[in-house]
């Protein structure tokens, strides 16, 4: 690991000013991605600004919005009673991710900014990685690509965004609150991430020095049912091959509101709006569920290693819809 300076920020303004003034500085929160990638030599900041003691922790309900402080840990958010009562798929996504130790460290802001698990990105001895070294190519496309993306991918990059939590949060239209050197702004999570295109090194709309201070999560209507289904290679402590986050409001035998997002398949947490449009107004059942799944997986970008994910993702979504709706046939 390259040497770096450690600085513990006294307040948010000082933290932002310090990182904004140093192009090679990074924030340090839970550290579960940051320090891991520094040990691998993928990230080489000259300064880490420790923000873990800043007052950005805790969950507050304001009307129909849950304001989640960026430094709230995954375990803390999973234990929140409003999350348990009104946002079951958020709680499930949290508890199906990582391990308890990591969830006690990892923060909500950091979870949204976690870097891809692509092994070619994470290995500096691999010469070809457009995300790590723009213009060098993509080793994953011809490599071992089982854990890679099929939606939003391009010939320049098929790296997956591996967050479970971000899946229900994009489905809910969560808002990311950010503070930078020039003040505060709010960014819809659905506009926060950037598709790789031909600049996979740019992953989100943040500019250097901007700090996530909170995530606002709109609560769905009373009576909404939700669930998060994660399919993976081992029963626990593993990233998703495919996943689906679904929230449905049923009334009189019809789906009146549907929120659908997919994990394990997208270069960004994948909101499936076409699938939602098909479900909204339809009676819950196999026909609507299959049509929604077909729409959600339209035009995938596959390589031999990821081709299996197209059907797996469709079936994952169908099963999630069956489970959440309670309509199995």
């Amino acid at each position, binding site marked *: 690991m390259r040497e770096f300076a450690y600085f513990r920020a006294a307040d948010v303004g000082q933290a932002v000013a310090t990182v904004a003034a140093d192009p090679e500085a990074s924030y340090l929160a839970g550290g579960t991605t940051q*320090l891991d990638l520094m040990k691998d030599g993928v990230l080489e900041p000259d300064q880490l600004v420790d923000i873990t003691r800043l007052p950005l922790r805790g969950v507050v309900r304001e009307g129909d919005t849950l304001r989640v402080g960026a430094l709230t840990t995954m375990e803390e958010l999973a234990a929140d009673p409003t999350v348990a009562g009104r946002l079951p798929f958020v709680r499930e996504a949290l508890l199906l991710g990582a391990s308890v130790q990591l969830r006690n460290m990892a923060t909500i802001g950091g979870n949204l900014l976690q870097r891809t698990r692509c092994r070619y990105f994470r290995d500096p001895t691999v010469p070809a990685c457009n995300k790590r070294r723009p213009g060098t190519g993509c080793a994953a496309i011809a490599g071992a690509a089982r854990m890679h993306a099929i939606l939003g991918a391009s010939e320049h990059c098929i790296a997956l965004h591996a967050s479970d939590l971000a899946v229900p949060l994009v489905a809910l239209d969560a808002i990311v609150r950010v503070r930078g050197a020039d003040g505060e702004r709010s960014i819809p999570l659905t506009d926060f991430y950037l598709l790789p295109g031909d600049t996979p090194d740019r992953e989100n709309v943040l500019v250097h020095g901007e700090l996530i201070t909170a995530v606002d999560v709109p609560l769905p209507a009373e009576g909404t049912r939700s669930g998060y289904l994660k399919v993976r290679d081992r029963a626990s402590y593993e990233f998703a091959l495919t996943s689906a986050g679904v929230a449905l409001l049923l009334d009189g035998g019809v789906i009146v509101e549907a929120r659908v997002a997919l994990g394990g398949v997208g270069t960004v947490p994948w909101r499936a709006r076409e699938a939602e449009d098909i479900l909204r107004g339809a009676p819950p059942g196999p026909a609507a569920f299959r049509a929604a799944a077909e729409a959600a997986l339209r035009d995938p970008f596959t390589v031999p290693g990821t081709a299996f994910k197209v059907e797996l993702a469709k079936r994952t979504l169908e099963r999630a819809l069956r489970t959440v709706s309670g309509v199995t046939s």
Partner: protein
Amino acid sequence: MTTLTVNGVDHRLDLDDARVTLLDALRDRLGLTGTKKGCDQGACGACTVMADGKRILSCLTLAAQCEGREIITIEGLGVDGVLHPMQEAFVRHDAFQCGYCTSGQIMSAVCLLAEGRAGSDADIREFMSGNLCRCGAYPNIVAAIREVAGAGGGHA
């Protein structure tokens, strides 16, 4: 100088290099080698310790971040030379083979009980999944935890 509070004792450390992790500080500077370095990348759980009562991975935590936090390691579990009930149960159930993951398993298991998550074997397996055992002693680890949970958990 940085003060680290480990097992109730304050230690003054000169963290001349910010790269020193909590794991390396415990092992190399304080001589507390019960906490093990497995993967050193947050994947195996061998380095599990408690910080302010919560289980964390000491390999992905900078020592400098721990100033003012209460760190408990495997050396801090027993009282006056008497093993913690979880340590006793691991011995009784032969819940290890090589023993390298054991201190992390035990730290995690003690926290598991404090979290109230040892209600079933399935829950024990799920919420212990961050601690890998390459020898595959899992059935015995689950049995040890189940026994302590059934007996009321022991002190933390």
